[in-house]
C-alpha cells in the first residue's frame, strides 16, 4: 500500500508537521479530543488520514482517545493521540495500560502555560515530569523526544513511532506551543529516504511464542502479534506473567516491573539524541529544550560576540534523561544556566542531578505565556559568567 507521503517544501506549523510525520511513519489510526494548542494536528489528521485509508476519530474525551489508540495498535494499526496539559493529565490514566501491556503508540504533548487550564493559547514547559512520572504505580521507563522546529517535529515524530516499535512501548513527543504554532519551512523527503520501522512479527508458532519476555528483560526489537493473527494474546490492566495472565505473585510482579524499566535502561546507547553548539572551548553552558532552545542559541551567539566562552547543549531526548552527556558538559564548564518555561525548575533539577556537582547549575525559569527573549537569557549569562 502506498504510504501517501507527499514530498516537497511546505510552509506549515509544527502541529501540522507532526501529522505529516505520523502519516509518513505509517500511522493509520488517530483518536483525539480538541485542545489548544494541539488541535491543528487533529485537524490535519482528520483531512489526511482518510486519504491514506486510515481511521481518524474525535472521541468523547481524552481517556477514550488514548484507550482507543492503544486498542487500535493491539488491532494492528500504528496509532497516535495528541493533547496539551489538562488533557495530558487525563491521558495519563490510559498511558499505564499501554506501558504495562507493551503497546507501541505515540502521544504528543504540545505544552502550554499551566497549571490547570492555565493559558490555553500560550507556551509553557511544565509537563517535563508529568509525562515521566504521571502514570501511577511507577515501575516503568518513559521515552520522550522534544523538537525545536517544524522540521524536527516531522523528523522526531517518525523517530517516536520507530522507537515505539523497537521498545514496544508508548513514546512521547514532548513539544510546546512555540514549536506547535511556529510556521516555517518543512521539507518532506522522498518516501525511500525515510527510515520507517515496521512492527516486528513473531517467527515462531503461537504455542512457542512468549508474549511478554519477562526472563530476558532487556530484549528489544521484540515481536508484537496483533489480534486475529492466531497468537491468542492476552492484554489486561493486571500484573501479568509471560502469557499475559493476571498474577499476584511477588516474583512475577518483580519480573514484569524489571522488564518495563530495563528494556529502556539497558539500551541507552540506542537512545542518544543531543545537540551541542560551541561547546569545544566553552567555560559556561546554556541548556534548554524544545521551543525555548531557540532564544537560548541566540543568547549564546550574543555572548560569543562579546568574547565570552559560552556553549549550548540541548537534550533532544528528554526521557530517559541523557545523564552521561550532561555530565560531560558539567565536567567541561564551571557554570550551567538552564532556561525553561516553568518557575519550579524541572529540567534544571535533572541537570543538577546529572552534573554530580561538577558544575554549578542555575535555573532561569519563567511561568510561560512568552518564550524567553534572547536578551533575557544573555543578561542571565552575564550575571553568572565568571
Amino acid at each position: 500500500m502506498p504510504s501517501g507521503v507527499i514530498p516537497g517544501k511546505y510552509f506549515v506549523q509544527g502541529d501540522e508537521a507532526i501529522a505529516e510525520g505520523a502519516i509518513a511513519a505509517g500511522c493509520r489510526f488517530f483518536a483525539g479530543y480538541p485542545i489548544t494548542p494541539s488541535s491543528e494536528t487533529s485537524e490535519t489528521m482528520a483531512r489526511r488520514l482518510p486519504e491514506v485509508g486510515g481511521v481518524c476519530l474525535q472521541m468523547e474525551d481524552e481517556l477514550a482517545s488514548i484507550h482507543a489508540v492503544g486498542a487500535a495498535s493491539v488491532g494492528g494499526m500504528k496509532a497516535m493521540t495528541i493533547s496539551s496539559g489538562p488533557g495530558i493529565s487525563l491521558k495519563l490514566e490510559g498511558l499505564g495500560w499501554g506501558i504495562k501491556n507493551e503497546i507501541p503508540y505515540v502521544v504528543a504533548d504540545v505544552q502550554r502555560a499551566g497549571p490547570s487550564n492555565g493559558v490555553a493559547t500560550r507556551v509553557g514547559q511544565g509537563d517535563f515530569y508529568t509525562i515521566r512520572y504521571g502514570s501511577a504505580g511507577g515501575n516503568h521507563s518513559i521515552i520522550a523526544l522534544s523538537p525545536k522546529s517544524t522540521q524536527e517535529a516531522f523528523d522526531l515524530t517518525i523517530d517516536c513511532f520507530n522507537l515505539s516499535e523497537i521498545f514496544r512501548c508508548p513514546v512521547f513527543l514532548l513539544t510546546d506551543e512555540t514549536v506547535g504554532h511556529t510556521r516555517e519551512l518543512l521539507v518532506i523527503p522522498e518516501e525511500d529516504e525515510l527510515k520507517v520501522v515496521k512492527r516486528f512479527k513473531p517467527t515462531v508458532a503461537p504455542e512457542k511464542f512468549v508474549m511478554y519476555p519477562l526472563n530476558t528483560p532487556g530484549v528489544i526489537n521484540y515481536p508484537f502479534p496483533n489480534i486475529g493473527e492466531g497468537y491468542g494474546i492476552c492484554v489486561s490492566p493486571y500484573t501479568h506473567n509471560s502469557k499475559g495472565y493476571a498474577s499476584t505473585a511477588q516474583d512475577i510482579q518483580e519480573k514484569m516491573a524489571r522488564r518495563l524499566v530495563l528494556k529502556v535502561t539497558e539500551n541507552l546507547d540506542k537512545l542518544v539524541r543531543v545537540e551541542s553548539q560551541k561547546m569545544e572551548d566553552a567555560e559556561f553552558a546554556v541548556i534548554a529544550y524544545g521551543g525555548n532552545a531557540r532564544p537560548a542559541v541566540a543568547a549564546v551567539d550574543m555572548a560569543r560576540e562579546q568574547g565570552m566562552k559560552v556553549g549550548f547543549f540541548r537534550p533532544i531526548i528528554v526521557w530517559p534523561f541523557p545523564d552521561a552527556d550532561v555530565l560531560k558538559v558539567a565536567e567541561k564548564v564551571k557554570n550551567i544556566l538552564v532556561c525553561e518555561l516553568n518557575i519550579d525548575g524541572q529540567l534544571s533539577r535533572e541537570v543538577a542531578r546529572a552534573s554530580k556537582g561538577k558544575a554549578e547549575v542555575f535555573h532561569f525559569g519563567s511561568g510561560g505565556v512568552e518564550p524567553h527573549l534572547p536578551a533575557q537569557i544573555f543578561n542571565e549569562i552575564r550575571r553568572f559568567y565568571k
Partner: protein
Amino acid sequence: MSTVGETLNVLHPLVEKYLRKERMPHMACSGCGIGQVVHSVLLAIDELGLTPKDTVWVQGVGCSSRITYSTWVGDNVDAHHGRMFAVATGLKMARPDMNFICFTGDGDCGAIGGNHFIHACRRNLDVTAILFNNGIYGMTGGQVAPTSPVGAVTTTTPYGNIEDPFDMCQMAVAAGASYVARWRSTDFKALTNSLKKGIQTKGLAFIEVLLQCPTNFGRYVLKSSNPQDVLTWIKEHSVTQKEAEKLSKEELTGKYLIGEFVHRPERTGIVERYQEFLKTHQKY
C-alpha cells in the same frame, strides 16, 4: 464425595471447546450468576459458528471482567476500569472484520465508564456488549453501585442508599444502540437467543443480565448469602414487558422490565459508515 480437582476432570464440552483449560477453575464465588451468563454466551457463539480466529473477548474491570478475562481460547483484551467501550472502539475500527464480545459490569459501564457507554451507543459501534448487573460492587467488597436499589444497605451506604438506580437499557435505547434487551440469569434460553440476535445485528447490541451476587448483594442488601434468596429477590423485582402491560404505574415502581426493548437492524453504525466514507475519500 468428590474433591474440586476430581470435578474439574469433567469439563463442560463448551468449556473444552472455547475456554482455556489452564485458566480453570474460574474466580467466581459459589452461587454467582456469571457462569450462567458465560454458558449462554458460549452456546450462542457455538450455534452461530463463531471461532477463536474471528472473535475477540473484551472486558473492563469488575467481577464481569476479572472472571471472564483470559479464559477465551482466542484473543483477550481487558481494559482499564470503565474503558471497555473505548478499547472496543479502537479494536473494532482497526479490525472491522472481527467479532467482539464485550463484558462489562454495572459499575464499569454505568458509573466510571458511563460516558464511553453513551458514545458507543451514539456511534452504534458494531460489537456485542453484555452488562452483568448484580446491583453492587462485588470485586471490591459490597459498595453501593449506580444500580443498587433505593434503601439498599451496602458497605458505603450503611444507612441505606438514597439514590435512584440507573436504567442503562433506557439509556442505550435513547443513545442509539441497534439492539437492546434485558434478561435474568435464569432466562437461559431467552438470553441465548437474544445473544445470537445481538451478535448478528449490525451496530451495537447491548444486553443486560440481572444476576445474583450472594457474596455481596445477598450478604449486605438482603442479609442472606443464599443464592436462592437473591434469585427470588430478582424474580420478585422483575416483570416481563407483557406482564407489565397489566400493571399500574405504582405496581411497576422498583421493578426491572424484562425483554427486548429495541431491534433496529436498519440503523447503520460508525463501522459501516466509515468504510463507506473511505470509498469517497481514500486517495492513496
